[in-house]
């Protein structure tokens, strides 16, 4: 189907993502922050869809919204929110934070400036119909090693988490 009102949806989704991002760090109540983060993630999923990457969008929703954020909320709900609200919101690492965000921002700016030179064909358009298959071919073909390393890393992290949690019980 042909795209309809693309700029409108782009600005809407991008705006929602930014709004969510700002809310995440400004809300005092951690549950509200988490919900704002979910808004950001959903807006991102929408942008993926607009980029003809439906598989990534679906995975974004399943994993981040349906899985990770639920666990976030799970943990936050067990925390005493009343006391957490009274704690200072921005801790002493704000210098590091500013430096990091500046660096990231410059990276984005440079990518935008030099973008046309780096990506001459602008957007590698994947076939909408076989998007999932294409991703599979990349993951299990060209980038198999990286994929396996990443999964190994996740496995290690998982075992580490289990071990750390086990100690308390």
């Amino acid at each position, binding site marked *: 189907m*042909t795209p309809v009102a693309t700029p409108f949806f782009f600005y809407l989704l991008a705006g929602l993502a930014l709004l969510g991002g700002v809310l995440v760090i400004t809300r005092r109540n951690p*549950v509200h922050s988490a919900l704002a983060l979910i808004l950001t993630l959903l807006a991102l999923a929408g942008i993926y869809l607009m980029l003809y990457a*439906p598989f990534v969008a679906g995975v974004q929703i399943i994993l981040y919204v*349906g899985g990770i954020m639920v666990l976030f909320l799970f943990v936050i709900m067990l925390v005493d929110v009343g006391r957490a609200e009274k704690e200072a919101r921005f801790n002493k690492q704000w210098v590091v934070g500013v430096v990091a965000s500046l660096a990231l921002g410059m990276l984005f700016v440079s990518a935008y400036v030099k973008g046309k030179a780096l990506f001459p064909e602008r957007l590698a358009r994947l076939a909408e119909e076989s998007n999932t298959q294409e991703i599979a071919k990349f993951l299990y073909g060209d980038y198999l090693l990286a994929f396996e390393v990443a999964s190994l890393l996740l496995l290690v992290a998982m075992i580490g988490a289990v071990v750390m949690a086990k100690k308390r019980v």
Partner: protein
Amino acid sequence: MRDYITSYLNSSGTPGEAGNIFWITVYILLIFAGVAAGVICMNWLERKIMAHMQVRLGPMRVGPHGLLQPFADALKLLLKEDLMPEQADSVVYHLAPLLVVVVAFTVFIVVPFGPSHAVTDMNIGLLFMLGVSSMAVLGIVMAGWASNSHYPLLGALRSSAQMVSYEVAMGMAVLTAVLMTSLHGGGIYGVGGAQESGTGTLSMIGIVQAQAGQHVWFIFKFFPLGLVSFVIFAIAMVAETNRAPFDLPEAESELTAGFHTEYSGFRWSLFFLAEYAAMIAVSSIAVTLWLGGWLRPFPNWHGPQVAIPGFWQAGSSNGVVDLILAMAPVVAFVGLGGLCFLGAWRMAKNPLFRIQMLGLAAFGALLALVGLICVVPAVRDRVQDIFWFVAKVAVSMYLYIWYRSTFPRYRFDQLMKVGWKVLLPIAIGVLLATATLGVVIQAVMAA
């Protein structure tokens, strides 16, 4: 404008694919109304069926055999006071039921009631359904937390842990079916029938078409692998919708009503609506993936060719079997109408019951009329697919009710144990076995 509207009727795709906004809207409204009607029917049926399983009558007062009970309930709920606990987080508290309902209805966008009867066919249809329905847990968690009360919080904790856990086993079972769509061979073991090429797809319509192409429902594919993965899904989907015997988040004897303890009136009814809509949605996934979606049963039975002028043309692949099965909607609706007439006839002959009797008879007449309309060839051919799909979903819904009146409730740790230690390993095993078998058989067939 008129052309715009009628042009779609000649296309063979879904309105989404055709890009026809008008028909998209019509389909969305139809599905919304259909699901809402389904929830209402489920409400009545659940109470009646459970009542009869439990040697009682169930609702009998509002309308003949309590047929109007769901409407009375809905009215009551709408008129009830909308309460909110004083210390509750009002934004989240009000957002939660909306999110749950929106999510529950959004998934129906890709449910294929027929080869062209869906709002749209997405390339990632299945992923979309699983993803969006996994967001329902967010609404439950929000409701439980925002109520600022202990029972809802415990219910929400249970719910989030349970739904996240069972999604894993569910995903593995789903992958097994998706894997089957990529097979080439037809028949149960992929060795017989037409050797059409399958490419593997996540599209809901594509999955059913793959089953049509292989001439086998995936529940029978690679017997018993397909069956096992279906059973795993069937268990996980009960857990996913928080229904008995996995209804811990709303276990009334433990947590009073779980996450929606503090809700009342309309907001509570939204949770109710969402729960049943979600049940229909996951049942639709099960039907699409394993039970052949809109395909009618017995695709391999053949009978002699018959022809009835103006009504049935000879030349269909299964001959008279096709004709008989095409009459199934007629038989079903006329049968239901007949049951209503029987009920009206058996009702006490008392002037007090006259309105009830007439009402029941009228309802029966309506059903019979619907059945008779299905005889018309033009309607018959369009309604067939939807009928079989809905019938299969209805069987699955009946199972839900049956479970509820049969099983005690699992305990939380046992639930987790079943999910992680029983279902997940089996699901992974079945997935690997299916992949291996598929590769081996195709290699053998190619050789």
